[in-house]
């Protein structure tokens, strides 16, 4: 792989990574007032987005929107500087946020909200800018109309296919799963178009993200008492480590302990070293709660991203980009947790427990 094509993006990421907040700085924000937090965040790369919020409008929601806007803007900036194949990958990666937008439009239509009310929940991104979202909301009477109005994008055809099943079973979630499944499949295909080390790293990091999502979904479905034959409909079986067959095997496990043992065995069979580290930690901690498991899996994602930089050279591959995106995403998530916790008056100790920080 030619290192020259990374000449513009790598320095940018390296600088942006240095500007990320230190874990201690985030922890120290817990328990502060929203005004205090926003004034501290104004000294960080979030400054431009936070300063747009008026003093009277300052709330957990407005701060959360500003943080997300910043994350999306950062992704878009990196996309502009990226070489062609990475740009294609990043544009599909941003489809996750577009998918959120589509799902929110669908939910708003299901709840029969008017366009103004619905726009409060929507974060316009990529091709679905504010004007497009508003237009879709205004011209659509119901969910079927949303599929029609998005027919010029791939979401239209995905929704049309899923709509037949929805009509039959009246499970709204199936529409959302169809969109998520489409987006993740597309991201997986985009990874396939990357070459050499980039492909290897991206498959490990994004594969882990998708598999962690599937693992969480299976356990939550089982806890809800959903039938085993139904669970597979809510999964995204694109990864190589946990493909359809492996996921079916996991669904059949009777309890969480057997489930974790199976995860370890399957990761060993697939020779997925990074998966083994995470599942070994889950086994070591004797995790029985879903919340703890979610946290360990999330932290595993950050650790794996950082491990990729150490394992391969930090520059001239996608590793640094993915590590930065994950670190940035979890920074946004942690800040969001601190802000919501401060608004709800949650003690700093409890907020600290909710944060997902790298080791």
């Amino acid at each position, binding site marked *: 792989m030619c290192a020259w094509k990374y000449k513009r993006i790598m320095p940018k990421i390296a600088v942006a990574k240095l500007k990320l907040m230190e874990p201690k700085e985030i922890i120290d924000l817990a328990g502060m007032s929203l005004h205090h937090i926003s004034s501290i965040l104004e000294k960080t790369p979030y400054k431009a987005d936070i300063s747009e919020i008026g003093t009277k409008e300052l709330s957990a929601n407005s701060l959360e929107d500003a943080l997300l806007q910043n994350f999306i803007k950062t992704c878009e900036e990196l996309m502009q500087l990226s070489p062609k194949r990475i740009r294609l990958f990043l544009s599909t990666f941003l489809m996750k946020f577009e998918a959120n937008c589509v799902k929110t439009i669908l*939910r*708003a239509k*299901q*709840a029969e909200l008017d366009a103004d009310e619905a726009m409060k*929940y929507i974060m316009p991104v990529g091709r679905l800018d504010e004007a497009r979202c508003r237009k879709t909301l205004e011209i659509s009477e119901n969910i079927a109309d949303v599929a029609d109005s998005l027919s010029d994008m791939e979401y239209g055809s995905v929704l049309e296919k899923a709509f037949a099943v929805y009509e039959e079973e009246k499970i709204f*979630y199936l529409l959302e799963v169809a969109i998520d499944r489409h987006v993740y499949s597309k991201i997986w295909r985009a990874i396939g178009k990357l070459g050499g080390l980039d492909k290897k790293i991206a498959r490990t990091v994004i594969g882990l993200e998708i598999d962690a999502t599937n693992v969480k979904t299976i356990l*939550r479905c089982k806890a809800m008492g959903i039938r085993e034959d139904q669970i597979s409909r809510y999964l995204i079986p694109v990864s190589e480590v946990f493909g359809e067959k492996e996921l079916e095997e996991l669904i059949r496990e009777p309890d969480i302990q057997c489930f974790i043992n199976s995860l370890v065995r399957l990761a060993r069979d697939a020779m997925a070293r990074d998966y083994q580290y995470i599942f070994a930690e889950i086994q070591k901690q004797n995790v029985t709660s*879903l919340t703890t498991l979610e946290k360990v899996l999330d932290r595993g994602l950050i650790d794996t991203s950082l491990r990729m930089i150490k394992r391969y050279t930090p520059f001239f591959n996608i590793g640094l980009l993915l590590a930065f995106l994950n670190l940035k995403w979890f920074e946004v998530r942690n800040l969001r947790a601190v802000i919501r916790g401060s608004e*709800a008056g949650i003690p700093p100790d409890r907020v600290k427990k909710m944060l997902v920080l790298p080791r």
Partner: protein
Amino acid sequence: MSIELASVHPTRLELLRLRRRKSMAEGIVDILKKDLDALTLKLFELVKKIPSLRDKMYKTLREAYDLFIEAEMISGSRKIEGVSLAAQPIDFKISEGKKKGLLGILFPILQLSEGPRVSGPRFNLLDTSANLDKSASKIKSSFYDIVKLAEIEESVRILLEVMAIKKRQMNRIQFKILPQLNAAIRYIELILEETERQDAVRVRVLQRKRKERALKHA
């Protein structure tokens, strides 16, 4: 059943009837006292259940709200609000029944039942955390406690109403009917005593007159 002294016939038969009524009223007061004791015991039994049930309900709700805030902290409050827009609602039905309890009082029975179960998840699992499931399940279980609490509080209300009625009945007998009966009995007794005294005087006068007549003839 107030008794007007003017309408009372001062006869022995009436006296016997009034005494019978008095002993019956005293018997009723005894029964009412025993009923009231039994009702009080039942009231204490029910009232004792309320604080523990209320504490349990508050605890479950507090845990549910804490978990909900944690879910918001993980996924973002905007996202949770958005997800909730299309969440599959659960239909709860409360069936009301009556159960014959102490002294034949009809106590309410409130039965909470869930409507037909949705076969899939109620909301998006990808966009939310497990804390939201736990919070929803805690809120659901608190509904059962709320309904049970409502059932007990309604039973207490009914019990207090019955106790108030019994107390009123007892007071009416003790402080109105029994004094009236006592007054009527006393009145008849006085009249009968007076009549007896007059009869005795009349007998003595007649005996004296008979004696005088006998002496005159002798």
